[in-house]
């Protein structure tokens, strides 16, 4: 029998709750269980939410719903707002020209003012994609529960938080009560051991895992990523991995916090300071799965098996090593053949064909998956000394104002410009193409974002998901290219 000590952190007061348990527990259980206000008999848990992130697209109906009930935001200090999904990535100093988009952004501003919610509006030095902003401002912390009306909220799990995407009715729930009702998911651990090869990044790791499990392979589960390859990732790499958890259906993904996490967090604006830091640090260090903790499902992979990845179809599970060929008819289970054929018809690709050398028209570097400074550094390092192919339209979109500033300060913008690229202004941009950054019908885009669904980057657009290095290699060659050729 082991004695476990849990710290409960509420409003910066620290309580020590001691209890004994016979069972070794997982990281996920520790964080989830510490936030259960009540278990509804035969139903979901009432889960307390430490941090609620909102943006302009999935919040307006929640605010109006709240108002219709005659309610106010219960804990406005636990909510942070930033417009990101529906903003232009040029001329952000001008009023937004699209009327509906402008209304949506202005509605967010009005709702935040009315409810006393802190907002990083357009041109604010902290503005950016909600999942880039949260960590860089120190809002995201280990052991927290975090939600946002956006499925890529799983990003914050990189810090050992339980973070997941919710719908607008649930956004309204959090506004009204700072809680949501949620059935506890099952637990999955994905272990990747070994060392990633040269030219293989966190994005390739996650695309590899998703290709193994399939687009619904983790539905119903919350994933913990473990293993030496995961441990050796930077925080930005870990965010990329956790970000993509939803692409195999998982509610979220998380990684136990360690020195890499604490090093990243120390000194961030909203991270605890002084004595409070030390107290929280002691708690954060307890946040890991105990030896012998049980998972409902486990997978193990070897880092050495992963090469630069690319997708060839219309869901993120349809990925493969860049030197491989699209599966041949004989290699596909009969039951899956119709949907794969439909997907390839959309892409205008043939069963069994090679992906290397396929024509590319657009390159997108950005999004909550790969719009951070390390991504821009990687892209710039590869294109340095080369020129963008004239026929390629490239959108290099920083994840936040802070990333933009850093790219300028580090001289990355000069490198990009010398190679024929320009840095745009922050936002979700061509990841979901709500703004003007749309890939035209029939065109191929090598994109560092997270989804290759039909029409995702614009009606009729064809998306190939890849890492920043692979996107860079496509931009300077005009075709799908193995980035290792340039390393």
């Amino acid at each position: 029998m082991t004695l476990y000590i849990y710290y409960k952190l509420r409003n910066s007061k620290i309580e020590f709750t001691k209890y004994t348990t016979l069972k070794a527990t997982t990281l996920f259980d520790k964080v989830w269980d510490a936030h259960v206000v009540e278990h509804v008999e035969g139903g979901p848990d009432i889960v307390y939410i430490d941090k609620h992130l909102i943006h302009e697209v999935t919040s307006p109906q929640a605010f109006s719903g709240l108002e219709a009930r005659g309610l106010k935001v219960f804990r406005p200090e636990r909510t942070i707002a930033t417009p990101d999904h529906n903003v232009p990535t040029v001329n952000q100093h001008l009023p937004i020209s699209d009327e509906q988009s402008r209304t949506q952004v202005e509605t967010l501003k009005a709702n935040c003012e009315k409810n006393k919610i802190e907002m990083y509006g357009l041109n604010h030095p902290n503005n950016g994609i909600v999942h880039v902003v949260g960590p860089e401002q120190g809002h995201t912390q280990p052991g927290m529960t975090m939600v946002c009306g956006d499925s890529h909220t799983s990003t914050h799990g990189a810090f050992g938080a339980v973070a997941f995407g919710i719908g607008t009715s649930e956004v309204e729930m959090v506004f009204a009560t700072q809680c949501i009702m949620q059935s506890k998911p099952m637990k999955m651990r994905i272990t990747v051991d070994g060392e990633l090869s040269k030219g293989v990044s966190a994005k390739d790791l996650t695309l590899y895992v998703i290709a193994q499990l399939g687009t619904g392979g983790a539905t119903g589960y919350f994933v913990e990523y473990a293993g030496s390859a995961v441990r050796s990732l930077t925080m930005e790499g870990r965010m990329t991995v956790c970000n993509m958890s939803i692409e195999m259906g998982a509610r979220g993904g998380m990684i136990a916090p360690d020195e890499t996490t604490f090093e990243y967090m120390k000194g961030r604006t909203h991270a605890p300071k002084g004595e409070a830091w030390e107290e929280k640090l002691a708690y954060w260090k307890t946040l890991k799965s105990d030896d012998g903790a049980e998972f409902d499902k486990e997978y193990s992979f070897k880092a050495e098996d992963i090469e630069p990845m690319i997708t060839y179809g219309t869901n993120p599970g349809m990925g493969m090593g860049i030197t491989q060929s699209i599966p041949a008819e004989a290699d596909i289970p009969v039951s899956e053949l119709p949907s794969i054929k439909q997907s390839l018809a959309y892409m205008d690709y043939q069963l069994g064909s090679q992906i290397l050398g396929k024509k590319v028209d657009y390159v997108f570097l950005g999004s909550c998956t790969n719009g951070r400074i390390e991504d821009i550094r990687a892209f710039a390092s590869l294109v340095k000394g080369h020129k963008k192919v004239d026929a390629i339209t490239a959108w290099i979109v920083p994840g936040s104002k802070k990333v933009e500033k850093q790219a300028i300060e580090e001289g990355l913008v000069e490198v990009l410009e010398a190679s024929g690229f320009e840095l745009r202004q922050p936002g979700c941009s061509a990841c979901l193409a709500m703004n003007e950054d749309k890939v035209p019908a029939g065109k191929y885009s090598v994109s560092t974002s997270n989804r290759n669904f039909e029409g995702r980057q614009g009606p009729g657009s064809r998306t190939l998901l890849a890492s920043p290095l692979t996107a860079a290699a496509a931009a300077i060659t005009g075709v799908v290219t193995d980035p290792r050729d340039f390393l």
Partner: protein
Amino acid sequence: MSVDKFTLLKTSCVPLPNENVDTDQIIPARFLKATSREGFGENLFRDWRFSSSGEPIKDFVLNQAEYSGKVLVAGKNFGSGSSREHAAWAIHDYGFKVVVSSFFADIFRNNALNNGVLPIQVSADFLSSLFNAIEKDNAQKVIVDLEKQELTYNNESCSFEINPYKKDCLLNGFDDIDYLINKKEKIQDFEK
């Protein structure tokens, strides 16, 4: 916003055998610019339903007059991808009360339930025989009995799962916020 009470349903079906239907297909991102919940039904499955010039695409099931009804029968892994509740709003606004599939994405399932749309998960075999029955008879009726947790067509019947709390919500038209507001005191205690 409380939801409609879910009552016994006898209706024909609309079949959509495609697998992995993501929420970007259910409602493309460019239609998420509205600030209200209404009117998303007209853009449900927009890019499968209409050409780029706005002409109905004849092959798509929502444009085929022989199929109608309040139940959408869909291929496995329905509703994957984006958390946009607009997908559930579009399905509800179009007039569907039930989506039947052999597998649902988690966030979509919650969003549907929060809007009074019942996701019914059935076995792959049941789904495939239901598709066959609809193919044979476009007007094939199904009966959805939430009280008994039973989906029936012809002489075929299968039970489905739903947690008792959510079932109670649907039958009575309650929503989670009604429930949570009554727990305010407990939540405040938890914060201490």
